[in-house]
């Protein structure tokens, strides 16, 4: 899972498998972080407030 785990070996299999996993998780994590932070900023600027009036 991580290089500091006792079973970790610096070989191609570990780098490809775990690198792929962390790459995908990083994209998803960064994408969602961007969405949440932008939503906070947009809300602070008053965007989307008109929806309360429906």
């Amino acid at each position: 899972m991580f290089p500091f785990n006792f079973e970790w070996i610096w070989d191609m299999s570990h780098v490809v498998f775990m690198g792929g996993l962390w790459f995908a998780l990083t994209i998803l994590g960064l994408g969602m972080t961007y969405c949440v932070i932008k939503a906070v900023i947009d809300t602070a600027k008053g965007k989307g407030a008109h929806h309360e009036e429906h």
Partner: protein
Amino acid sequence: MDTALIPEGVKRDPLWKFVLKLGPVVAVLIWGVVAMLLCWIKGLNQTNMNDYYGFALWIWADLAVIALGGGAFFTGLLKYIIGKEELKNIINFAVLVGFICYSSALLILAIDIGQPLRGWFIFWHANVHSMLTEVAFCLSCYFGVLTIEYLPLILENRQLDRVPFIHNLSHNMHEIMAVFAATGAFLSFFHQGSLGGVAGVLFGRPFAFREGLFIWPWTFFLFTWSAAACGPCFTIMLLKITEKITGKKLVKDDVVRLLAKIAGWMLFTYIIAKIIDTWYWAAVTAPSKGFGLMEFYSNNGFYGIWILILEVVVGGVIPALILITAKGRSNPKTLTLAVVLAVIGVSVNRWAMVLQVMAVPVMSFDQWALYYPSWQEVATTLLPVAYGIILIALSHRYLPVWPQERELNPVEATAGPVSAEAAPGAESEEETSAEPEPAPAQA
């Protein structure tokens, strides 16, 4: 009673009728939950799995729902990456179906591993030489992608959407959905393929073993290809069932025909590749391991050559020929027939690659080992079906799944939301909200 939660401008059954209709499905769900608890509390002795069948009904169900859930990644790829904008009218439903399929697959795996509390071992103590590890990684990550794709639909519920932060969040998620869709397509390609790869690398099982390209047996590519072809067919099949149950047209014919055409050509090219693969395997690969073709289909009470014909001809060639012709996919009856046959075809393929592989004798002293699932296995396999029906029903009732529903089923305008309880009469059979709905941030 729940009128305020129903999307604006559409008709829905009164709440009591909705709950009543779901009653039998909830009963099946409870039956499945009881069986699931039995498997967790008493262990896998509740199943009929044995030394022959370490993979059994659950793994077939897993592979089948993962293939059928492929409609989400392929439709997402077509819409967000290739730019088939027309598919925006069915992408919500494709994502919903994919979400149900993949959450079902994970649920079944959680039962199948026997000790779900140790499920995290596959991540922490990963065997990096196993295709199943790759499947576990991609499956979990792709379920995350599907959750991210389904979440904006929930956030667009009429009441939730009024909260500015939630409205902005769903809007932002739509804006970068292409990134998530591309990640999903990447993950799907590998886990669909690796599920096929698991069977193809079994050199001790000549029924499954295939040669291939570098480390990937041909089954790797065939599984991905078949999922991309049959997943959209499953989405169309469920759409037709939903339209039949609700008595409404929910997606325009041109959108369905476009998806059916693309799925048809995918299925047509897949089935050609599958026939070539089967011929080469029967003529070269299996004989090189000491087996003739008919040895895989004789001397047993179940697995005849009919299963190969059902998979390749009935579930492959026929639906492909229907879907690639304009006349075939324009006729609602032949279209429905084709998508049902394609779903059967890919399900039979997964059955053969999981269960027939286990049944075929490989040693001279071996005999065919047939397997019958226990009621607990059957109940836990039906559990995701019941769960899926409930989730589709709830999403249809409370979420804006269908961008074209209001146009296809116009509701007479009234002063405001009218429920059956509040205004019996013209709308007495259905709850209605006829307020104009604000356009979604992005369909």
